[in-house]
């Protein structure tokens, strides 16, 4: 009986294992494999070694686009670290100390998270469209036409606006994770901290922050990965070419253009597209490893 029991697990695991391997794991290796070939998707695959990567990094036409896109990705990543995450933590803290109406705020602040980024982009069009958008109409109505702007058509504003949209839509998940981490801190610690007479600032910086940060490492890792893979919103708001002067261009959009769009020099080369994916993957890996090294410094022995 014992032996029979040991074998049955295969029946449970096999279906999931097969599908998962074919559609999730295999593609990761496949993309590495493709990246060293020149291939239009039909016919012969030509082995070219690292030629695709060379084009990506040194070609006069491709490299500036690629580096501009990567620069935007890193800029967005900096926003995640320096603006979005602290903002999320602050809101989580405010919910934790039960500011007035915190239940309503908690409910509403998470809601946009279940709304598709397509629809969020639609809302952005409603508000920010230069011709019919609500904001420009409103400025005209209150007699301040000089405040009108092209918004997403203005390269100085497009990126900032997108960060605001991302916060509006996505901040909820991080807030909830930080919040539940704060709630997990033992009440004994809070009690002894109260008896020792520490004030709110001390309690925040000496107790809550250090005790909840380590468990936040995984959410920061996830946001980092997503920051490097962003696609939907800049694609819908800035168009396939990444907005005016490429201010909304990201690595993933460069990949999309070269792979499913017009291709490189007018001919489609899937290997080249794959090499962009590999580059993205490598950047993600490096950033995540560095970041986790950095975050682990803050870990306390508890």
């Amino acid at each position: 009986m014992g032996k029979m029991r040991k074998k049955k697990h295969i029946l449970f695991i096999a279906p999931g294992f097969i599908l998962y391997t074919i559609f999730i794991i295999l593609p990761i290796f496949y993309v590495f494999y493709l990246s060293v070939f020149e291939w239009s998707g039909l016919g012969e695959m030509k082995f070219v070694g690292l030629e695709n990567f060379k084009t990506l990094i040194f070609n006069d036409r491709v490299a500036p686009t690629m580096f501009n896109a990567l620069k935007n990705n890193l800029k967005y990543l900096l926003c995640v670290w320096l603006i979005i995450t602290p903002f999320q933590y602050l809101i989580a803290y405010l919910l934790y100390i039960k500011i007035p109406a915190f239940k309503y705020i908690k409910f509403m602040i998470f809601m946009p998270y279940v709304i598709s980024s397509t629809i969020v982009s639609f809302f952005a069009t409603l508000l920010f469209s230069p011709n019919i958008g609500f904001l420009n109409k409103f400025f005209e109505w209150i007699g301040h036409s000089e405040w009108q702007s092209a918004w997403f058509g203005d390269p100085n504003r497009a990126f900032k606006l997108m960060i605001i949209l991302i916060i509006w839509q996505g901040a909820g998940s991080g807030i909830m994770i930080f919040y539940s981490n704060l709630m997990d801190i033992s009440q004994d610690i809070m009690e002894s901290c109260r008896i020792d007479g520490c004030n709110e600032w001390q309690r925040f910086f000496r107790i809550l922050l250090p005790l909840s940060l380590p468990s936040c490492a995984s959410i920061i890792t996830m946001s980092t990965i997503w920051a490097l893979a962003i696609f939907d919103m800049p694609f819908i708001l800035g168009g396939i070419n990444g907005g005016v002067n490429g201010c909304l261009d990201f690595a993933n959009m460069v990949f999309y253009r070269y792979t499913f769009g017009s291709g490189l020099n007018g001919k489609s080369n899937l290997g080249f597209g794959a090499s962009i994916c590999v580059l993205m993957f490598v950047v993600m890996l490096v950033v995540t490893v560095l970041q986790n090294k950095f975050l682990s410094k803050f870990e306390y022995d508890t």
Partner: protein
Amino acid sequence: MKRRRSGEILSPTARTARGVLAAILIVYTFTTVFVIGITLLDSLKTKGDLVSNFVGLPKAISFDSYKKILFEGDFINYFKNSIILTVGGTVGCTFLAALTAYGISRYDFKGKSFLTAYFLIGMMVPVQVSVLPLFLILKKIGLLNKLPGMILVYMAGISMACFVFQKFFRTIPVELEESARLDGAGDFTIFFCIIIPVCKPVIATMALITAIQEWNDFYMPMVLLGSKNVKSLTLAIYQYISQFTRYMSESMAAVIITLIPVIILYFLFSSQIVEGLTGGAVKG
């Protein structure tokens, strides 16, 4: 003075500060009500009314834009596609994840920890990296631009659900299964008649958030469902936005129809959704 949960007594300044912050946040959350409200109102205007009166109450309630997208054009077809994708993907993915998680967490075998880690990889690698190979694989097996192909890809994304289920299954006492086994129940009977009913809440939660994610998905359908007859709702909305001035009233109605299911689900199950997306998924 009110004593707070942590027991400290608030000074008047601190109380004012909290009140002000709360007020700011309440105003901030009104943006959600505002944009959804405007869209809803606009969707009830006639086209002429909409152009002249973009923000504000409709002159008369009209269901023209709804009639237009529901009875003309392909919108209803996109709606059907989205339903098929979401239901198929969610049921398949949740079921597969439950099976796999059960196999891993309730049996002893070699390579158990390897498998646990193996199934986590999908959570760390975004689909954007692997979408080109997915495109080629689906093309190879003849399922590109077909709903079943997309559903298979959704079904394969079991990483998160599998991880959450494993954690949950480990908490079920072994005695429960042992006594059923002594009564002569087979492994699958135990799984379907004991484990699934016991785990209903967590399974429902994971199914719920999987469904919301698949309903909202834009990138994968765009790449993997290119031809017109298999498009999903998010793609339809994208189409409307890219020609916004032409399809203004249609897009309002389309957004509302796409939005209603998730908003209803959120109002009914907000705590489960939050818990599913945060609690089990990335914590710990």
